[in-house]
């Protein structure tokens, strides 16, 4: 069971890393405006702030593997999947914020949208399923962002824009993780 769960956590981190609407565009944006250093700094910054609450909870709280907490986690993941479906299908639940290429704006954007989407749940689930799983998720996510940005710079491939990656890939992986929780 461990291997499929590890693969799912890694995949989720990677897929969220290449999703242009989850921060990759910001690096490209800063790069266009000649803020080169910030553009390379943004992948870890976005990953950190997007999952900040999840990281803090994962570091401070050890969720016991007993039926009550399992049920709580199942409910949270289900709620997070519903939120992601709503967020990725409409524009109503979305924080846009300032357009200026300034680091503080990206931090605000990351925090606000991560809370709306209940993104920290992913970290908590990863940590619940695999010991220090949140680190695997965190690293795969920001390394993917950094590599993707290195290759894309100021021309993120059009195909990445064209498809709703969140609805097509991220949510199915989350459903797999949900099954993982049930089976563990």
């Amino acid at each position, binding site marked *: 069971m461990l291997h499929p769960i590890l693969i799912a956590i890694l995949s989720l981190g990677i897929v969220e890393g290449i999703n242009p609407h989850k921060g990759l*565009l*910001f690096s490209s944006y800063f790069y266009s405006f000649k803020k080169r250093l910030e553009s390379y700094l943004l992948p870890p910054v976005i990953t950190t702030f997007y999952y900040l609450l999840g990281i803090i909870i994962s570091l401070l709280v050890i969720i016991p593997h007993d039926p009550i907490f399992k049920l709580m986690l199942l409910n949270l993941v289900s709620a997070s999947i519903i939120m992601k479906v709503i967020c990725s*299908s409409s524009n109503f639940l979305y*924080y*846009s914020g300032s357009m200026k290429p300034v680091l503080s704006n990206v931090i605000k954007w990351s925090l606000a949208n991560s809370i709306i989407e209940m993104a920290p749940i992913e970290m908590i689930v990863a940590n619940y399923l695999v010991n220090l799983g949140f680190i695997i998720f965190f690293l795969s996510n920001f390394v993917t962002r950094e590599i993707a940005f290195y290759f894309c710079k100021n021309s993120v491939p059009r195909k990445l824009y064209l498809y*709703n990656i969140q609805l097509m890939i991220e949510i199915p992986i989350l459903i797999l993780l949900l099954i993982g929780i049930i089976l563990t």
Partner: protein
Amino acid sequence: MAIVPFKRDPTFYPSPKMAMKAPPEDLAYVACLYTGTGINRADFIAVVDVNPKSETYSKIVHKVELPYINDELHHFGWNACSSALCPNGKPNIERRFLIVPGLRSSRIYIIDTKPNPREPKIIKVIEPEEVKKVSGYSRLHTVHCGPDAIYISALGNEEGEGPGGILMLDHYSFEPLGKWEIDRGDQYLAYDFWWNLPNEVLVSSEWAVPNTIEDGLKLEHLKDRYGNRVHFWDLRKRKKLHSLTLGEENRMALELRPLHDPTKLMGFINMVVSLKDLSSSIWLWYYEDGKWNAEKVIEIPAEPLEGNLPEILKPFKAVPPLVTDIDISLDDKFLYLSLWGIGEVRQYDISNPFKPVLTGKVKLGGIFHRADHPAGYKLTGAPQMLEISRDGRRVYVTNSLYSTWDNQFYPEGLKGWMVKLNANPSGGLEIDKEFFVDFGEARSHQVRLSGGDASSDSYCYP
């Protein structure tokens, strides 16, 4: 509001360079009006087939008839555009609805171009009373799809005086939200606006208040009642930052065209007429060393003429060029000008925006040229609204300015037409002999191309 679950709108492009590779347009939506023609019919949006491979090429394939008369259709725009792909944009929105305001009535029509783009339908009408009640504005002009709402400029208040400004519509319900400005300073006159999204700068221009323009141009008003300034605003704080006067002698600061490359904080504007010598001029506005600047980069003189002049021009014995519209290709390489008085479309190379170089021109109608279409069609009026295709290869031209002004400058009658110009990517313009749309007694104003065009979308990437 429609949901776009698996695929984003394919007409959105993150940068103007990428948008230039978009497939050519199939349809053009054209604002057509009977207001001012003496014909008591409602204005309409014409759907014109612009696909050369189609059997109905160059023909009107449908008319969206409006339910009221005397709206005076003028400018219109899309509910959403490429700005949705800004890094913090709303990617699920789609380009689907045309937002069509009446310049005279202040009524707003929401027209759905889906499911059949060849037969769009009106799905909502926002009555002028509602617009006035919520915003205090009237006489609606430019429409832009903004980052947080749909923005529409208004020439004046409920009484037809100033200040004019900008009102916002909800992106999803299209309900008027209210005035955009929080601190307008001394801004009173309004007309066009556009923005640079990454720098959060909005730019607005000045024509005159509705009570000054609606019954026609009165020469005695030119000195004091027409604007010559451009205003720079903080887009987020909705506060005016600075204003520039574009020549004390110039009047009517109309179309604002920022460069499409958002890393360049500059753009062009046309000054329609000079009180000194009737010339028209193009000004470049730009931000440099922490301050706003503007300088004249093109001046087009009036042409002397003795006979065959409309009453309003007889005292001058000359035809002013009347540059009433300008447009920039998506690669920011060419600036196009319409000379509604003389009867020309000009193309300038603006690779160096401070020193535009004339690279092409064609003659169409006009008080001075009176030039007919090369395919033999008689052209009344002259080139007015310009719209450039995303690839920059085609320029669509229509001929009506504003109903009461049309009647003054072209008293012999102005019948709507649409002409296509083929633009050479390395410079040069020619009239397409195969394309001509005759709108009959109706007059034609703004053109919007399916999938977007050079004045419909804003971009966050260069």
